[in-house]
């Protein structure tokens, strides 16, 4: 009897391990429209309303727990912010002068737009779920293809770039954040303009690495980094130009290296996202499926 039980247990274990490995390899090899992906989307669609309800209901409890953690962090940030305010006042005075000049130039060039997402139709979305591991830096949002959201649409928060849509069902969509290892964003350092690729460092959501910046180009701490939004006619970046990504936190040059190692601190609070905006529609970008 005992032997039979042991044999049964081993058989079930082997079946489950084989099933997991088959699922893993099949999903890697099949296309986005394959049966496993479709099944996954169906489950996600069923769970989306439940997730939304749970997220709303549990928000007060989450806020209470996070409030304790944030209070400790806020004490340390307070003194840093005081010194930053003084710096920013000086920069504001300069920037206000430059803004007036900029508007006149834009009018002259016929480029008078309302912002970096001009031409797009923004859809506000609530974050209803997120992955608990650092290996999948993704969030689930509540509107899906029913609201006009498509794969590769850029996603922003009030602070800056958040990520892009990588999967979509009728009622929900998956956003791959800029801190996910599958993400890379072509970026430009302001105001001097060296361009590189902003990639994450897995495990550290408060740091991006700006790669392929020539070591002879000067990059300073505190410079703003925005999306480059390049296009060569045949292919183009998934992101429109000028969306703020973050600011340079450190720039080091190794003697044996061709490129600088520029660290960027993202503006968007990647771990504290509640609402985001998806830029749907927009002008056609070559190489980006619409």
């Amino acid at each position, binding site marked *: 009897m005992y032997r039979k039980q042991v044999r*049964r*247990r081993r058989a*079930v*274990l082997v079946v*489950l*391990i084989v*099933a*997991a*490995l*088959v*699922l*893993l*390899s099949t*999903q*890697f090899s099949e296309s986005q429209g394959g049966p*496993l992906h479709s*099944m*996954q*989307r169906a*489950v*996600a669609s069923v*769970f989306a309303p*439940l*997730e939304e309800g*749970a*997220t709303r209901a*549990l928000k007060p*409890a*989450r806020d209470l*727990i*996070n409030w304790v*953690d944030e209070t400790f962090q806020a004490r340390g940030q307070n003194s840093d912010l005081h010194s930053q305010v003084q710096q920013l006042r000086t920069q504001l005075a300069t920037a206000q002068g430059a803004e007036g000049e900029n508007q006149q130039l834009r009018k002259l060039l016929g480029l008078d737009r309302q912002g970096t997402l001009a031409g797009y139709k923004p859809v506000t979305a609530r974050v*209803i*779920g*997120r*992955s*608990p*591991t*650092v*290996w*999948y830096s*993704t969030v*689930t949002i509540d509107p899906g293809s029913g609201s006009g959201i498509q794969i590769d649409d850029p996603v922003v928060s009030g602070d800056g770039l958040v990520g892009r849509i990588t*999967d979509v069902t009728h009622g929900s969509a*998956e956003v791959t954040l800029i801190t996910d*290892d*599958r993400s*890379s964003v072509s970026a430009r350092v302001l105001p001097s303009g060296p361009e590189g690729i902003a*990639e*994450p*460092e*897995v*495990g*550290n959501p408060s*740091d991006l*690495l700006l790669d392929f910046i020539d070591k002879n180009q000067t990059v300073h701490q505190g410079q703003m980094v925005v999306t480059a939004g390049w296009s060569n006619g045949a292919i183009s970046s998934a992101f429109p130009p000028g969306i703020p990504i973050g600011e340079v936190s450190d720039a080091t040059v190794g003697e044996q290296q061709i490129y600088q190692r520029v660290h960027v601190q993202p503006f968007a609070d990647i*771990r*504290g996202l509640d609402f985001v905006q998806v830029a749907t529609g927009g002008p056609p970008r070559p190489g980006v499926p619409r």
Partner: protein
Amino acid sequence: MIITRRIAVRIALVIVATVLLEVSFFSYLSFFGTTPDIVPLVVVALGLLGGALVGAVCGFAIGLLLDSVLLQTLGVSALVLLSVGFLAGRYREGTEISNSLIPPLLAGALTFCAAAGFAAIQLMLGVHTPVSLLVLREIFVKGLLAVVLAVPIYPVIRIVLRSAIVDDSAGRRRARSPITPGARRAGRVRGRRMRRPAGVS
């Protein structure tokens, strides 16, 4: 554990509630820069209460559901969590849980193993960007948080599945029932006699 249809429904509800709580509540929290993960510790609890087979099946199911809801690569969580559930179940089958500290410590150790296993699979599948050493801190802190979270979560799951646990129901039977047949009735009669007021025959 005696698996009846009712108990199977309860386990399914525990699995769904765990996934919902994880993606909608716990993954928004941050302690020491790390998100707490209750999924491995729930699998450990199910394995400890139900044995290796129940642990493995529940780990597989909860992993599959988590990967589906979060649109992650199917099979990764299932593979890691079925191993966690199986190991917890094997521990219970081989060793008696004599100390109340054992479930939280085991949950912490197996959550640590789950996070390390998850990282190993991800690295084997290919990561296109540099990996920070902070990943090690994440794995370690996840294990510590699991120890703390297991203190309230393990008893809750035990209560939910109490009627199916063989030890518990046997223990209750021993506490209530007499040794010889007919003694329960005799005890009740004896009790009535004792409660009768003095002077009343």
